[in-house]
């Protein structure tokens, strides 16, 4: 009785990503899976729940749950054995309220209508949200949504739960309470596989640990687990306080995300022609803050760009001054091929003299995009998309550039190239750069100012911790 994969190879039509995977998940196991973005973790997990190859991917080898091949099972039967929590908490529900969503799931598996209310009560109590039945899903936080998704899998009665980076949009406190919850479920006899970028909090609850290395899934021996909880290093930042020359000035600035208050009465000056790094736990509201600076999110109080109130500046004028590189690189694209995109920004660039054909070609080469000219931007890998989106805005070179997680999911080489490219453009053109980044290990040398964002607000730090 287990969920097991034998000699499994998964990937795309043109290339396999993971090869020769052998994995057994017994009841009472919690397996942690780590590895770089784009290494095939999602593809593997979706194959384990039988979503692939139906929804894409190329798969060979066998996956069985309690002896039955998952790919051949009907969804309504399979969901009672194995099911999944997805990366984007807000894109996994069909219905508007918690109750309706859970009813939908139970109707799918032909659960008796008379027993549904009791089943839903039990599932919501188990995840610690007993009163959430009538709540609108659209008003819940990332952490609450993942708990509801967990309650849904419990209601379905699955013994094996697959979690695909479930904490990517979840704050630190919710992450901890969800990890405790998962630990309890494992003790109750559930089998769980979870993928994550962050090792924190797993050591006490996991039974096995695998890493993706190249195209192989490699087990990590329990003796080596402590190596992953690395000691941190601190690097002092050069920027002097108070900030001398400012670009943004905020006074009594308050922000909300839906019903959630993320910042109250914050006074702050942002340094002009310097690099400012914003760090903080998931879900604290970093992206919303950046969207405020990009005039894409409402605010209360004062926020001035070079002395002018932001919401009073016309969009057309504003976006000549300020550019945003979105966390999702697809949001940055307007045209279809890589060449079309590059040519468009070269024509429109504010620094066309600097970004001449030679300079652009060199940058494209350094980012490993030289052979992609005729390719569709939507067919590039996640890392390539990320690099292209950033390059497009560096070529545009507006005076202020906001970067939302520009390093997420890049391999070591790309990371260094991207860091250097940002640094060169910033220094040569005197750009103001404000960026959010989880990754601080390689990029700390770039940073002039470091702002920590927590529930207590925004505060300047004297160092960067990596």
């Amino acid at each position, binding site marked *: 009785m287990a969920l097991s994969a034998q000699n499994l190879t998964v990937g795309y039509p043109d290339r396999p990503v993971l090869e020769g995977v052998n994995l057994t998940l017994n009841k009472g196991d919690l397996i942690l899976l780590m590895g770089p973005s784009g290494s095939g973790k999602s593809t593997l997990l979706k194959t384990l729940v039988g979503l692939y190859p139906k929804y894409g991917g190329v798969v060979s080898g066998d996956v069985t749950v309690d002896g039955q091949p998952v790919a051949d099972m009907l969804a309504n039967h399979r969901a009672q054995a194995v099911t999944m929590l997805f990366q984007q908490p807000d894109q996994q529900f069909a219905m508007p309220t918690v109750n309706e969503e859970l009813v939908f799931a139970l109707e799918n598996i032909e659960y008796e209508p008379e027993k549904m209310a009791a089943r839903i009560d039990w599932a919501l109590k188990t995840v610690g949200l007993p009163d959430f039945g009538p709540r609108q899903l659209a008003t819940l936080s990332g952490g609450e949504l993942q708990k509801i998704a967990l309650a849904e899998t419990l209601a379905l009665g699955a013994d094996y739960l697959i979690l695909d980076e479930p904490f990517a949009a979840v704050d630190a406190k919710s992450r901890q309470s969800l990890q405790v919850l998962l630990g309890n479920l494992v003790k109750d006899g559930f089998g769980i596989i979870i993928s994550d970028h962050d090792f924190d909090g797993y050591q006490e609850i996991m039974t096995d640990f695998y890493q993706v290395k190249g195209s192989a899934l490699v087990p990590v021996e329990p003796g080596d687990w402590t190596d992953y909880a690395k000691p941190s290093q601190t690097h002092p930042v050069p920027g002097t306080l108070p900030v001398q020359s400012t670009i943004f000035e905020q006074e009594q600035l308050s922000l909300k995300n839906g019903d959630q208050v993320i910042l109250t009465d914050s006074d702050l000056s942002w340094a002009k022609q310097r690099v400012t790094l914003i760090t903080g736990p998931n879900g604290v509201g970093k992206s919303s803050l950046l969207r405020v600076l990009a005039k894409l999110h409402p605010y209360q109080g004062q926020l001035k760009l070079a002395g002018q109130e932001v919401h009073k500046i016309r969009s057309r004028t504003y976006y000549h001054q300020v550019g945003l590189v979105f966390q999702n690189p697809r949001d940055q694209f307007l045209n*279809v091929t890589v060449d079309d995109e590059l040519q468009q920004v070269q024509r429109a660039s504010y620094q066309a003299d600097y970004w001449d054909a030679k300079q652009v070609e060199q940058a494209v080469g350094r980012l490993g995009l030289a052979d992609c000219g005729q390719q*569709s*931007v*939507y*067919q590039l890998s996640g890392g390539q998309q990320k690099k292209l989106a950033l390059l497009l805005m560096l070529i545009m070179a507006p005076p202020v550039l906001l970067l939302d997680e520009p390093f997420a999911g890049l391999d070591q080489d790309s990371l260094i190239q991207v860091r250097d490219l940002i640094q060169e453009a910033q220094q040569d053109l005197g750009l103001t750069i404000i960026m959010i980044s989880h990754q601080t290990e390689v990029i700390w040398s770039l940073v002039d100012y470091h702002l920590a964002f927590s529930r207590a607000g925004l505060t300047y730090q004297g160092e960067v911790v990596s």
Partner: protein
Amino acid sequence: METQATGSSWRWSLRDVIFLALVGIAFGLIYWLMDWVYQLSGALLGAVGLKALNDEVTLGPWMMAAPLASLLLRRVGAGLIGELLAATGEMLLGSSFGASNLLSGLVQGVGSELGFALTGYRNWQLGLWLSTLTGTVVTFAWSLIVAGYSHYQPGLLVLLFVVRFASIFLFAGVLVKAIVALLAKSQLFKL
């Protein structure tokens, strides 16, 4: 809308239905935004008694959902359902056409679908151009019978027909073709 008939080409997958519904919702939103443009130009032309002309000029964008759905999903009924969903979405958002949205969505969907049906759902390119023609004829017939167009002077009628065809041809034909060409280049759709 019941599609679980015999042949597999009639069976809709969940993913295709959601995609179609999202296309409907996206256009519902675009239509709803367009509504304000329509109101504005309607106020100008309406003041000199030419609201009908305003209706004709702005009709094209309203008829884009159907041919796009047909071309992207290549299924019988995709255009009709897509247009109906877009019209319903627009009504639910609060449009100035109210319940007549449902009727006009139905008529516009049928009109567009007819063009593709005439090729036996085989030649989608030809179907697109035919659909601009059938779309114009069917909706104009509806206007004659129902919207009181038969009470207009013949000269004005000819003008209205020509303007309507031009608008539908440009938006639901030329622009749709350009959009589909872009999507084909993106390689995300099997076109």
